């Protein structure tokens, strides 16, 4: 499993949510996520589901504020989740 680097922008529409900024191939995107799911400046995104020219396609736990569920990110934006157990 992988963790996506994020920048915390503050509370979302509900106290349980946090809005984070992620860097995608198409530029910065905001995502409102479950605040408890964040881990030291990263967001769990599972395994990448695609690869192209130095970018990896990841599926976010919730859509971005512009509606994208899967986004291309630079490989450098991802770090391994050493706490995750293998699921498949």
């Amino acid at each position, binding site marked *: 499993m*992988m963790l996506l680097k994020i920048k915390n922008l503050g509370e*979302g*529409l*509900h*106290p*349980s*949510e946090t*809005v984070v900024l992620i860097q995608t191939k198409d530029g910065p995107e*905001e995502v*409102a*996520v*479950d605040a*408890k*799911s964040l881990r030291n400046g990263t967001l769990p*995104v*599972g*395994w*990448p*589901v*695609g*690869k192209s020219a130095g970018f*990896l396609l*990841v*599926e976010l*736990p*919730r859509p971005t*504020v*512009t*509606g994208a569920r899967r986004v291309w990110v630079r*490989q*450098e*934006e*991802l*770090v*391994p989740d050493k706490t995750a*157990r*293998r*699921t*498949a």
Partner: protein
Amino acid sequence: MILTDREIQSLLKKGLISIEPKPPLAAYNSTAVDLTLDPVIREFRTNAPGLIIDPGAPGYKATDLIRSATDPVTIADQGWELPRGTLVLAWTRERVDLDFKGRVAARVEGKSGLARIGLGVHVTAPTIHAGFPGTIQLELVNHGPLVIKLRPGMAICQLIIETIKGTPSKAHRSQFAGQSAR
């Protein structure tokens, strides 16, 4: 395949899904579990003359628009009145985590007793995807002829949990794994 109450409780016991705070036994029925209303809702302002929502426009940001067009309201124990024909955003008090290892997804649906007085709990978006963590956002609409009082902690919706066939790509260590930042 929809899970029964016993299967939901078995997954909870094994830690393959979680619902916190833990629902009491009375919150279950044979094929679902009731979730309750968090006190914090967001009410749309009605005094936004000329505001037209253009979700197809480049750069449209749903969260920004909702933040600018709504106000948070914390419902007191004595309740809050939802007028006829009104939409508010609400959340479940429970945090749900559908870990991939549980191989389940879910749907949030209304309760019949509330449906019959006109209360809808979602607007065509009931799916809780496999791997979802968090409180569940609801779109409460009063379709009925009378004002409906909302109270924090009331059973507001039911969660129906279904098994999924196979493992989604993001939970499967594929050929793309291990090729990122080192």
